[in-house]
């Protein structure tokens, strides 16, 4: 059976397009799923995840030794202030763009009293000392605090209310 070249070309063009689409869309889709799971429709607001147990089924390979707080930020209404309350064991704040890039990380080795940054689309227009430019309008901020025991997790729960993830307009500095 002879196949007309136009059908082969059509299949080839579709194959190239589908290949590129899967490669480009994979990080965006996975991050969008993560953002919608974490935010539950609410942006610029920290959520302390329940202590990781065998019932935790949201994100694969969770570590039972950490307390996780996550904030899905949205810069549509302007810069977002992110502050973390002090924690006397290991902690880190990681920022992820909507394409999954981990574009910023800070921990207790650099900021013992906690992080205090202003997230913006254009770092030049903000306070240069603590402005961090986000490559995307939306993304995820994630705090990991070492809390390997139920008592340590309870201590995190007591200070987590002091964490800030809010638009600059809603934050008194």
């Amino acid at each position, binding site marked *: 059976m002879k196949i007309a070249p136009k059908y082969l070309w059509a*299949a080839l063009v579709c194959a190239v397009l589908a*290949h590129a689409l*899967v490669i480009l869309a994979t990080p965006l889709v996975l991050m969008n799923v993560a953002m919608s799971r974490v935010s539950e429709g609410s942006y610029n607001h920290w959520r302390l995840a329940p202590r990781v147990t065998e019932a935790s089924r949201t994100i694969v*390979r969770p570590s*039972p*030794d950490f307390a996780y707080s996550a904030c899905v930020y949205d810069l549509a209404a302007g810069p977002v202030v992110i502050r973390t309350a002090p924690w006397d064991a*290991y902690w880190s704040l990681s920022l992820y763009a909507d394409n999954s890039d981990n574009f910023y990380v800070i921990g207790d080795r650099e900021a013992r009293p906690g992080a205090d940054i202003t997230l913006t689309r254009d770092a030049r227009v903000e306070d240069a000392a603590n402005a961090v430019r986000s490559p995307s309008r939306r993304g995820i901020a994630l705090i*990991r605090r*070492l809390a*390997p025991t139920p008592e340590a997790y309870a201590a995190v729960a007591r200070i987590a209310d002091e964490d800030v993830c809010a638009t600059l307009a809603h934050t008194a500095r």
Partner: protein
Amino acid sequence: MMRRVLAWAGAILIGLSLGAASAWAVLDFGRASFSESYGGWTHSHAAGSAAAGPYTRAIIAREGLLALSAREALYFTIGVDDQGRPLQEACVYELTGRELDARWWSVTLYAGDSFLARNGDHAASIDASRTRAGADGVWRARVAPVRGDALHWISSRAAGRDFTLTLRVYNPMREFRPSAEMLPVLRVISCAGASA
């Protein structure tokens, strides 16, 4: 007319399927390029890496979404015993190791579905802050469905077959150089219904 429509539809469908399948295959194949092995442990550079291009970014997103950068943490996973057999609940293992050049470490057991095993034992992991080494500087942990007389225990009850252990090394020192000799060693002690 109908034959021509079917031919176009077939060409488009075949093209889309081949394109999507080839992309998925590239991501699977590319995963290996990010992996290094130390004994039975596998370490992936993908987790927490900065993307250099669309392929790298897609591989990282699949392998280590929301993972920490290598400066903050290194992840190692083992899924076979010292005889190369997949880990299974029916066996008893001993995990031994020394202090690592890092601020903190932990070892966590994940069932085949990549979640903690549903066993109610509250013994899914051990970590540097709760593990005591003997006079020889070596700590020992039992990986088994029951604790027995073990000082340190990781429960594999309800983990089934093909479970894995993940070693997380936080704030590794500048001199931290992973090797089969430096990382913990997993040995099979016995298996139900067979001699180890």
